[in-house]
C-alpha cells in the first residue's frame, strides 16, 4: 500500500510509449498543455514581431506581404491552436474526472483520438507556415480568400481537422458529466468549472460543424469553382461571413466560458468564502452559451447585410451583457467580507476581473451599429478583443495553471516570482493594449504594416509594453517549469489553498494513475466554507 501511495500518473507507467498511447485523461491533458504552450509561444513571437514592425511608422523590419502573413498566422495559431483547445483540452481533461470523482472521462480512447486529431490539424498549420504562409487574415473572408495565391487550402484544412478534435472533446465531456458523477454529486453540487465545461461542450458540439462546412465550401469554391460566395457564379460573399461567424461568435464563448469557470473556482477558494449566487452563475453559463448563437451578425455591421438584420443583431447583442454582468457581480460579492489572500492565482483572477470588464464594456461601444461603423476595422476592435481574449481567457488560463499546478505536478513554484510576473503581465498588457483603444478612436486601421506618423507615439508605447508583457509571461512559465526540479517535491497530501473540491480533498498531488485510491465519498459541497473548515496544508 505504501508503494501504491508513491505511484502517481507522472511516473507510472514509465516509457515514451506509455505517454504516446496513454488513455489517462491527466496525461492527455498534459500533452494538450504542452501543445498549447508551444503554439502560445509561437503565436506570441509572431505578435512581438508585429509590434517590432509597428514601433515606427515605415516598413522598417518586414515587407507588407510578410506582415500580412504574420498577423494571419498570429490570429489563426492563437485562436485555433491555443485558446480554443487549451483550457478544455489541458485543464478540462486534467480536472474534469477528478472533480466528478471519476476514474477517467467517459470515452478515454476517443479522448486520445481527439488529441491526435488536434496534432494532425496542427501539422497542417505548421506545413502552411513552412511553405510560405497565408495572408488572408484569420477570418479567411471571401472574395480575397478564394483568389489569394497564398496557402489558404492547407490552413483551412488544418482548421477543418482541428474542429473535429474540438467536437469529440465536447462530446466526451458531456457524456462524462452526465454519466460519471459519484453518487450524491448532483448538478447543483458540481464545481462551477464543470458547469463551464458543460456549457462550452454544448457550444463545441453545436457550432463547430458549421466552421467545418464553411472551410469545405471555401475549398470547393477555390478548387472547383463552385459558386457559393462569388457573385459572378451566383454566390454571395456576405454569406461567407454568416457561415464563418455562426461558428466564430459562439467560439468566442468556447474561449471565454472555461475561463469564467476557472475564475469561479479561484475566487471562492482564495477568499475562503462560499460562492455568491451559485445557481445564477451556473445558469448564466448556459444562457451565455445560448445567446451566443444569436448575435453573430454584430461582426458584420459594415458588410452590407440588411439594416433590419443590423438592428436585430445589435439588440440581441446587449442581452449577452446580462448573464456576464451576473457573473462579475457574483464574483465581487463572493470576495466581499471574505478572507482574500493575494496568492498568484488570486492576483490573476483579480486582473481578470479588471481587464475582462474593460473588454466587456468596450463591447457595448462596438455592439451599437452607428458607433461600430466608425470603429470597425480599427485598433479599437483589436484592443477590445485582446482585452476579452488575452485579458480574459489567457489571464484566467495562467491563473488556473498557477492554481492547479501543485495538484497536477506536485510541486510549488516560487510564489514571489509568480506574483511579480502577474504584475508584469497586468502592466504590460494594459500598456500594450490601452493605447490601441486611443489609436482606434483616432482612426488607425488594423492590419497595416505602416501608418501615418501622427500615430507613432502611441504605437511606440504599445510596442514597448508588449516586450514587458512577453517577458513576464515567459518568466511566469519558466518559473513553473523551474519548480519541477526534484528537490522541490511536495507532500502528496498537500492542499496549499485549502480548496474543497474532490480533486484537492480526495486525491494525492500529483494524483494516483487511477485518480482515487478508494471510491471517493462526497462529504460537502464544493464551496461550503460556511459549514466546513479545510485548512491549507503545504509541506515539502
Amino acid at each position, binding site marked *: 500500500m505504501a508503494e501504491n501511495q508513491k505511484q502517481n500518473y507522472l511516473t507510472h507507467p514509465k516509457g515514451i510509449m506509455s505517454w504516446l498511447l496513454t488513455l489517462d485523461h491527466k496525461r492527455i491533458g498534459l500533452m494538450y498543455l504542452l501543445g498549447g504552450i508551444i503554439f502560445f509561444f509561437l503565436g506570441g513571437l509572431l505578435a512581438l514581431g508585429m509590434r517590432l514592425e509597428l514601433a515606427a511608422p515605415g516598413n522598417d523590419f518586414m515587407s507588407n506581404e510578410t506582415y500580412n502573413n504574420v498577423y494571419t498566422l498570429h490570429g489563426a495559431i492563437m485562436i485555433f491552436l491555443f485558446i480554443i483547445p487549451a483550457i478544455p483540452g489541458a485543464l478540462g481533461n486534467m480536472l474534469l474526472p477528478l472533480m466528478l470523482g471519476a476514474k477517467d472521462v467517459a470515452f478515454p480512447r476517443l479522448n486520445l483520438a481527439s488529441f491526435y486529431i488536434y496534432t494532425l490539424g496542427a501539422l497542417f498549420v505548421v506545413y502552411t507556415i513552412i511553405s510560405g504562409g497565408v495572408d488572408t487574415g484569420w477570418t479567411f473572408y471571401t472574395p480575397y480568400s478564394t483568389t489569394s495565391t497564398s496557402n489558404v487550402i492547407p490552413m483551412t484544412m488544418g482548421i477543418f481537422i482541428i474542429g473535429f478534435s474540438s467536437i469529440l472533446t465536447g462530446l466526451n465531456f458531456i457524456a462524462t458529466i452526465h454519466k460519471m458523477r459519484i453518487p450524491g454529486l448532483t448538478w447543483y453540487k458540481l464545481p462551477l468549472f464543470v458547469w463551464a465545461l458543460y456549457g462550452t461542450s454544448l457550444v463545441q458540439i453545436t457550432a463547430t460543424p458549421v466552421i467545418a462546412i464553411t472551410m469545405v465550401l471555401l475549398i470547393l469554391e477555390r478548387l472547383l469553382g463552385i459558386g457559393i460566395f462569388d457573385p459572378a457564379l451566383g454566390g454571395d460573399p456576405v454569406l461567407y461571413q454568416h457561415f464563418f461567424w455562426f461558428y466564430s461568435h459562439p467560439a468566442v464563448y468556447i474561449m471565454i466560458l472555461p475561463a469564467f469557470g476557472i475564475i469561479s473556482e479561484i475566487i471562492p477558494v482564495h477568499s475562503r468564502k462560499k460562492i455568491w449566487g451559485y445557481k445564477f452563475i451556473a445558469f448564466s453559463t448556459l444562457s451565455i452559451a445560448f445567446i451566443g448563437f444569436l448575435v453573430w451578425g454584430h461582426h458584420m455591421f459594415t458588410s452590407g447585410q*440588411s439594416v433590419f438584420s443590423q438592428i436585430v443583431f445589435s439588440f440581441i447583442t446587449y442581452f449577452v451583457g446580462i448573464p456576464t454582468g451576473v457573473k462579475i457581480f457574483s464574483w465581487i460579492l463572493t470576495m466581499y467580507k471574505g478572507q482574500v489572500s493575494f496568492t498568484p492565482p488570486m492576483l490573476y483572477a483579480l486582473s481578470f476581473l479588471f481587464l475582462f470588464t474593460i473588454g466587456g464594456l468596450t463591447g457595448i461601444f462596438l455592439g451599437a451599429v452607428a458607433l461600430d461603423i466608425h470603429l470597425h476595422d480599427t485598433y479599437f476592435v483589436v484592443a477590445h478583443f485582446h482585452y476579452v481574449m488575452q485579458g480574459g481567457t489567457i489571464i484566467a488560463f495562467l491563473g488556473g495553471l498557477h492554481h492547479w499546478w501543485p495538484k497536477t505536478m506536485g510541486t510549488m513554484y516560487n510564489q514571489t516570482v509568480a506574483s511579480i510576473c502577474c504584475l508584469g503581465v497586468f502592466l504590460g498588457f494594459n500598456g500594450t493594449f490601452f493605447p490601441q483603444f486611443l489609436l482606434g478612436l483616432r482612426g488607425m486601421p488594423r492590419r497595416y504594416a505602416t501608418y501615418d506618423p501622427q500615430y507613432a507615439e502611441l504605437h511606440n508605447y504599445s510596442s514597448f509594453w508588449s516586450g514587458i508583457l512577453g517577458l513576464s509571461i515567459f518568466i511566469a512559465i519558466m518559473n513553473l517549469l523551474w519548480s519541477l526540479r526534484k528537490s522541490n517535491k511536495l507532500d502528496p497530501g498537500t492542499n496549499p489553498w485549502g480548496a474543497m473540491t474532490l480533486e484537492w480533498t480526495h486525491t494525492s498531488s500529483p494524483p494516483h494513475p487511477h485518480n482515487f485510491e478508494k471510491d471517493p465519498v462526497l462529504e460537502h459541497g464544493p464551496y461550503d466554507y460556511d459549514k466546513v473548515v479545510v485548512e491549507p496544508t503545504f509541506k515539502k
Partner: protein
Amino acid sequence: MSEHHITPLKTYLVIAGALFCLTAVTVWVSYFDFGSFNIIIAMGVATFKATLVALFFMHLLWDDKKNLTMFIMSLMFLGIFITVTLLDTGFRGGVNPEVEYPINKRAAFYDSLPLTDTHGNPVDEHGIDSHEGDEDHH
C-alpha cells in the same frame, strides 16, 4: 435508461405505407402551382416524413428523451442559422431600395414621358443619344 424497445413489424409497415402515401402526395401537389407556397408545401411534407422516420425507424419516440432533445436542438440551431441569415438576404432592400422596389421600366407611366437617356437628356425617336440599355424606356 429505458430498456430496449421492440417495435412490432406492423408499426413499421404502417409507417412505411404512410411514407409511400406522402411521397405520392409530394408528386401530386407538384402538378399544382401554389406560387411561393410551392416550396413551403413540399418542405412541409418532407419534414413530416423525416419526423416519422426519426420517431419510429430511429426509435426516438421510445428512446431516452435526452436523445430526442439533442436531435430537436440540432434542428433548432439549424433553424436559427437559416432564418436569421434570411433576415439579411430577404431585407437587403433596406440598404438598397432599388433592390427591394425595383423600377418597372416597362410600366405604362413611362410611355407618357419624353424619351431620355440614362442621364435624363431628351433623345429623339431614333435615338441620337441612345445606346444599349435605352430600350428600357419604351
